[in-house]
């Protein structure tokens, strides 16, 4: 798995104020992993195109969301482990 300066893990719904803070902190070379309520971002027009995008498959499935594989990669918990080690730092928003 590629190295990223920062892996951002977002578990808040798009309306939550921390979502805007997280999106404003993304650098182009970073990765964003959407989990839990954070996966709801996929259903909106607000998905950032600025950096590498991942989303946790069990959370996508729980919410009945559809995945645009051109936009982002669905991953499982073992990918989440690898991503957290591949990034220099992890921020859990």
């Amino acid at each position, binding site marked *: 798995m590629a190295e990223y300066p920062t892996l951002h893990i977002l*578990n*808040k*719904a*798009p*309306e939550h104020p921390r979502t805007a803070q997280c999106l404003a902190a993304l650098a182009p070379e970073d990765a964003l992993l959407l989990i*839990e*309520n954070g996966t*709801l971002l996929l*259903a*909106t*027009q607000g998905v950032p195109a600025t950096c590498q995008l991942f989303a946790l498959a*069990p*959370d996508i*499935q*729980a*919410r*009945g*969301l559809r995945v645009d594989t051109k936009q982002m990669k669905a991953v499982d918990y073992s990918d989440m482990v690898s991503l957290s080690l591949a990034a220099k730092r992890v921020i859990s928003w």
Partner: protein
Amino acid sequence: MSTLIVIDQAPYGSWAGREALDMTFSLAAFDQEAALLFTGPGVNWLRKAQQASEIGQKTVEKNLAAAPVFGIEAIMADRSACARYGLSEASLIAGVALVDPGPDLYRQYDHTAFAG
């Protein structure tokens, strides 16, 4: 004495929605008029084909389908929140009425409650 229960929190990431449903069914069990309004990220409770077993939870689709049987007056969803979350009539579970929450809607109920 009609009560509006509002669910505005996303599913699975909190228990507020489930506990608001419990409140609604309790009202109905005691023969009190009750209606449900889903708004904000809460509208995502109403999406078809949810499968939450991998995250150790249960969906509420069956509960909501039973709502009319239990005497719950209406299941309403905020039209603009549905649009924001790409929820068309086709992707919503059956029996949901789209509404535009505002003074006129809230004034139809004697009582309005959130679960948290």
